[in-house]
């Protein structure tokens, strides 16, 4: 039987301290409506204030600044919403009253339970005395193991704190030892925490109580009666003659406003749009010619099929997914912003999965719990691509900035931040929920009690155990393809031999001195300058050799600790503000969703908890109210520029309601019932008339549908950073289409501009460029490439002067303009009119009009006149005239690449 121990540290009725008249009136007027005698927190007496509510005591007598009550008031959290706030003078009055209560007896009625003591032990002790390490043979995690103790004997003598080593050593300051605490980023226990351990022992060291079951009154019984929590139903497709259901729903909505679809965009505008949308690359001249010549019905649909089958599809849509995941190639901290070697395996997994049209349900499951699908990877070293991929998929929840490789930055608070960021990634990208609020308090608008935040967070905390933490470089699995191991060995073997030789040289110098003096190496080197001068260059050489070595092939993974710690609700998000213990689970409001199976964590094999696998199973239920809706809405936003739910990461009460819910729900059901196939959804969307509309708009339509919520046209859009970079390189014929693997490096110029290093074949696509958080490529940064903090659910589109400066004056565009000029001159056999045509095809994917040819030819002639003067002092082997023509065409290309038509998509 589980025994609940109740220990009273101090039980005194608070002397009946009176409020002053002003304070009393303020509470009565502004607070009593909710915080009367009936509620959780009662503000009707001083004693009740001290007792407090779910977040602990409301005041600290004598210290207004430390009182939760004041905190809530001055931060504007209370009174909530539109209720009248306290005036400054009123706040001062309450402050003054609290400050006067220095003599008020502190009343603390505390039930000391095992879990309260364990919380302290977890925060301060288990890094050394837990599941991963057992210093001195001691494991402090359970009552039994405390009784058993370690090399120094039992740690616990129930009822006798002064005889219990686990209390004595903390109280006398020997535990945790300073040096160890620093190395493992553990902070010293506070006095209050030490007291908790003492009180628990004094109470006879009771066993833990069962964790309270989640269901309680915190979620209103009708909380799930909100549109996004009711599973979608496939409604009837409106019978308005439209063949594509997408159009039928869109037209029905337009008709309500007396609007209709806009005319179809012209053939080449549409071609450019769908190319950039599905592959992120513009069509080539050959593509354009072939498409123009395809006069048979269904040419557009065939084009869409071709693009969806293109390997570039996965690169384009992979980037969208990487935005959601918050992918970057570096840790994000420290002067060196440490690169994450092999992070790219996750990027490659995403691209391959999308190109293979892996069902979204499987795609999600692998990313949330790829490690729990099978344990074959644990014993393997050489692996198939499939095994590597399934494991690399867990990189989805390994993306956020993580400073904890440094012990100075590995404190509990920072570990908790890593977990919180991953929860944020998961919730915003997959669930469309804003859970972050509930980290510190119950969500004010959505039915998410704070406890539920920690239930959700506990799912990840089996792997991201904040108490027995693994730093990022300890979350790697040595695993790779056979070819990778071979390359690694072949590359490193000679270097290792070289390093061994250098080491031998050093030994030869040191060994005799060691023997002679019996001193340690460091001491010898400090004292013996001559020897130091000989050895230092050798050590440098050693380092250089080591730098040249390749890291062993590995996969960055997320996998559980074998025995995860107990988790707690953390009051106000404070990492040591331990409230009640919580079990892993999803938000309890979903228990109200009819027909939805409950979350269940079942270990698929020994050594893992199955919590994440349970989450994946729960999320990918066909009737889940959010998963499919959020996914199709994301796709819709990327295609149409605006989500059906415009707040793509917030399907809650503070989000924006769907502009066309029947459409959203029909798509969501269709998505699930057609096997969660993403390519089918793309095809449905981009072959609709709605997608094929022109972006031209007139005043009446603009008035009737100002934000294009009804899809009365296609929005004109500026290219995002990736599309811009890839299109520039592609137009210039300087795109290296090599897929996958190690990213292309970036370099910082003398001017501190960050630019991409082209390879021998040109620039790789932006998705294959190193994305280091602290050195984003300047051009991309100015075009709103998001800093991953932690992720990006929707890109912003700004138009600012720095973009113009980079495009006009930067080296990348000018270099590319010259490449482009070379290509078009070669293609055009000296005919300037043809040059203009080829430039238009490359940059705008259309043929120029006669007046545009005229303008272009004249411009080139004009540019040509400006070059001979300049070329007088260039030392070029090529004939000057040819160079001048080349440069003139480069000017022309440069202007075209800088024109609005290039960077905007009709």
């Amino acid at each position, binding site marked *: 039987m589980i025994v609940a121990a109740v220990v009273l540290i101090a039980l005194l009725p608070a002397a009946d301290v009176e409020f002053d008249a002003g304070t009393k009136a303020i509470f009565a007027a502004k607070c009593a409506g909710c915080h009367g005698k009936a509620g959780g927190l009662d503000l009707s007496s001083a004693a009740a204030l001290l007792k407090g509510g779910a977040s602990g005591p409301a005041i600290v007598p004598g210290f207004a600044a430390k009182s939760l009550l004041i905190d809530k008031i001055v931060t504007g959290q209370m009174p909530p919403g539109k209720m009248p706030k306290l005036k400054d003078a009123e706040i001062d009055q309450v402050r003054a009253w609290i400050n006067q209560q220095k003599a008020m007896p502190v009343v603390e009625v505390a039930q000391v339970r095992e879990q309260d003591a364990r919380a302290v032990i977890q925060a301060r002790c288990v890094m050394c005395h837990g599941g991963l390490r057992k210093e001195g043979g001691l494991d402090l995690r359970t009552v039994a193991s405390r009784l058993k103790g370690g090399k120094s004997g039992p740690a616990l003598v129930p009822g006798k704190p002064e005889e219990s080593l686990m209390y004595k050593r903390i109280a006398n300051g020997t535990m945790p030892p300073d040096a160890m605490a620093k190395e493992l980023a553990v902070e010293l226990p506070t006095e209050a925490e030490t007291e908790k351990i003492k009180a628990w022992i004094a109470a006879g060291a009771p066993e833990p109580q069962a964790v309270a079951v989640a269901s309680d009154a915190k979620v209103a019984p009708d909380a799930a009666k909100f549109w996004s929590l009711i599973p979608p139903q496939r409604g009837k497709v409106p019978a308005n003659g439209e063949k594509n259901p997408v159009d039928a729903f869109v037209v029905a909505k337009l008709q309500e406003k007396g609007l209709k679809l806009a005319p179809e965009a012209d053939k080449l505008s549409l071609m450019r749009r769908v190319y950039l949308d599905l592959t992120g690359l513009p069509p080539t001249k050959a593509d354009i010619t072939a498409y123009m010549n395809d006069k048979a019905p269904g040419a557009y649909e065939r084009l869409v099929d071709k693009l969806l089958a293109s390997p570039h599809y996965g690169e384009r849509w992979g980037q969208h997914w990487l935005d959601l995941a918050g992918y970057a190639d570096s840790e994000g901290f420290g002067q060196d912003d440490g690169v994450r070697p092999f992070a790219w395996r996750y990027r490659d997994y995403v691209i391959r999965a999308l190109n293979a049209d892996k069902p979204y349900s499987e795609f999600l499951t692998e990313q949330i719990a790829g490690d729990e699908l099978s344990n074959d990877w644990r014993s393997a070293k050489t692996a198939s691509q499939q095994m590597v991929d399934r494991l690399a998929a867990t990189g989805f929840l390994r993306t956020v900035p993580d400073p904890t490789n440094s012990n100075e930055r590995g404190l509990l608070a920072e570990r908790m931040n890593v977990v919180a960021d991953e929860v944020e990634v998961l919730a915003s990208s997959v669930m469309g929920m804003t859970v972050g609020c509930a980290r510190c308090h119950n969500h004010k608008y959505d039915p998410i009690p704070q406890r539920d935040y920690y239930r959700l967070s506990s799912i990840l905390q089996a792997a991201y155990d904040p108490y027995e933490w693994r730093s990022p470089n300890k979350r790697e699995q040595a695993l790779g393809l056979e070819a990778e191991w071979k390359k690694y060995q072949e590359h490193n073997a000679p270097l290792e031999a070289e390093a061994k030789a250098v080491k031998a040289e050093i030994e030869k110098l040191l060994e005799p001195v060691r023997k002679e003096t019996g001193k340690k190496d460091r001491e010898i080197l400090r004292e013996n300058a001559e020897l130091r001068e000989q050895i230092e260059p050798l050590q440098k050489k050693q380092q250089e050799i080591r730098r040249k070595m390749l890291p062993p092939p590995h996969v960055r993974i997320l996998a559980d600790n074998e025995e995860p710690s107990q988790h707690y609700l953390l009051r106000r998000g404070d990492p040591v503000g331990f409230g009640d213990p919580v079990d892993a689970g999803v938000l309890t409001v979903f228990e109200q969703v009819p027909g939805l199976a409950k979350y269940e964590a079942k270990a698929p094999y020994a050594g893992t908890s199955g919590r994440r696998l349970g989450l994946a199973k729960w999320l990918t239920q066909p009737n889940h109210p959010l998963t499919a809706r959020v996914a199709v809405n994301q796709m819709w936003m990327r295609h149409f520029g605006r989500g059906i739910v415009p707040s793509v990461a917030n399907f809650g009460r503070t989000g924006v309601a769907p502009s066309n819910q029947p459409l959203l729900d029909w798509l969501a059901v269709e998505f699930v019932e057609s096997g969660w196939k993403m390519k089918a959804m793309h095809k449905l969307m981009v072959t609709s008339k709605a997608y094929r509309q022109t972006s031209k708009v007139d005043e009446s339509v603009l008035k009737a549908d100002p934000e294009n919520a009804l899809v009365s046209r296609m929005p004109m859009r500026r290219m995002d950073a990736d599309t811009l970079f890839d299109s520039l390189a592609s137009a210039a014929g300087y795109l290296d289409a090599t897929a996958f693997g190690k990213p292309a490096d970036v370099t910082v110029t003398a001017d501190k501009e960050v630019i991409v290093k082209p390879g021998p074949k040109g620039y790789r696509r932006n998705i294959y460029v190193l994305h280091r958080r602290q050195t984003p490529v300047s051009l991309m940064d100015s075009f709103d490439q998001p800093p991953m903090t932690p992720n990006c659910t929707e890109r912003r589109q700004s138009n600012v002067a720095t973009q113009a400066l980079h495009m006009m004056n930067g080296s990348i565009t*000018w270099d590319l303009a010259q490449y482009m000029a070379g290509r078009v001159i070669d293609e055009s056999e000296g005919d300037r009119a043809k040059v203009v045509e080829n430039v238009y095809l490359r940059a705008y994917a259309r043929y120029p009009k006669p007046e545009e040819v005229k303008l272009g030819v004249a411009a080139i002639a004009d540019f040509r006149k400006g*070059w001979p003067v300049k070329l007088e002092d260039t030392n070029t082997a090529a004939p000057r005239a040819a160079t001048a023509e080349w440069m003139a065409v480069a000017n022309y290309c440069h202007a075209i690449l800088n024109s609005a038509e290039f960077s905007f998509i009709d």
Partner: protein
Amino acid sequence: MPSSRREFFSRLTDGLHGAALAALAAPAVTFGNGGGSPVFDLKPKAPHFPGKAKAVIHLFMNGGPSQVDLFDPKPTLNRLAGTAPSRELSFAISNGKEAGTIMPSPYTFKKHGKSGIELSSALPHLAECVDDIAVIRSMYGEHANHEPALFLMHSGRTIASRPSIGSWVTYGLGSENQNLPAYVVLDDPKGLPINGISNWQSAWLPPIYQGTRFRTEGAPVLNLQPRAEIPTPLVEAERNLISKLDAAHRGSRPYQPELDARISSYELAARMQMAASDALDLNQESEATREAYGLNDEATRSYGKRCLMARRLVERGVRFVQLYIESQIFDSHGDLKNSLDYACGKTDKPIAALLKDLKQRGLLDSTLVMYGGEFGRLPMSQGPVKSAGRDHGPNGFSIWMAGGGVKGGTVYGATDDLGFKAVENTVSVHDFHATMLHLLGMNHRDLALERHGLKERLTDQFPARVVKEILV
């Protein structure tokens, strides 16, 4: 008149466009009372209430200046010199093996000015300006490491990825000069501070609010000047061609405001080339001014130039200017006196010149100058006696503010007898941020951005108090 002088310059560089903008100040950015969706541009915005400060110059002192050697005299250190520190104090040092004993300051403190504020002999020039500054001696931070402490000071949290103070200010107030960036960073050519460009990031605020680095040497902005290899007339010819192409493109696509915005951005880029070069041309300054800022002396030249540039920028209506100094110059882990002599030797004279110059031009009343690092230092020694320094101390440190509505000649708050912890009238970094916003006419609770269902603020959800005691 200060405002007219600033207005004079912004008219000068903006032409009619700028004057019209100034007259049509947009409504205040506020979400405290359920305001509408925010406008993301740099047009001047009305504050929440009239604020004294129109611009901010943030003199960030990288490394953590030692309060007990500069601003916070502690005679007790002399009395306890050489004695062992408490466990709490010795645990505060990062490497326990380096923990030494209580160490007095190598400098002497003296009262200065009418206010009689005590300053150390390391700051002789600032001593002449004490009646214009308010020293807060009771600051406290949250972390003893540079990175998180810098993040805290710059963005209100110890983590990466939140908008910086300059981004919040320009988001709230826009800029009075449309030809220059609203938020300018003058970093040291010798190297970026810790956390690099993250210190002036806009994070999830739009990138227009990101700090723009103006370099002290060469072209002030990345790619500001046309490529040298393209003949100048051809640069013009390219621009003309782009204008023609864009006009035709725009003409056949009515009602697309994005296209207008893009055309304006290209025009601004061209204007910026002129305006930025002019703003940073220090040859326009008199010899006396150059001398006062220390431009004729090797030790003070680099920082002096940045101080002078800062004045020229705020004079032209730039909203927020941030100055940095050699990566961690105040990080005095060893050789305390030499280290501080070096750091103060580079900065003391130019900073005093800046204060005097702003005052003399009538700009100090409307320009908030803020001086401080990411934390302070410990009262005990670190490392071997001969070359001892002090380790990081986030629990109590000093900063000062001047101008823009700050009551000069004020000292606020106190640390304990050792200068280890702030104990009296303590001021958190959030309080400091709230005070800065208040001086600019903004309520820290109302300057917010709705994001993922949260009202994000510079002060986040933390309690924060305006330090009214240092205001005029």
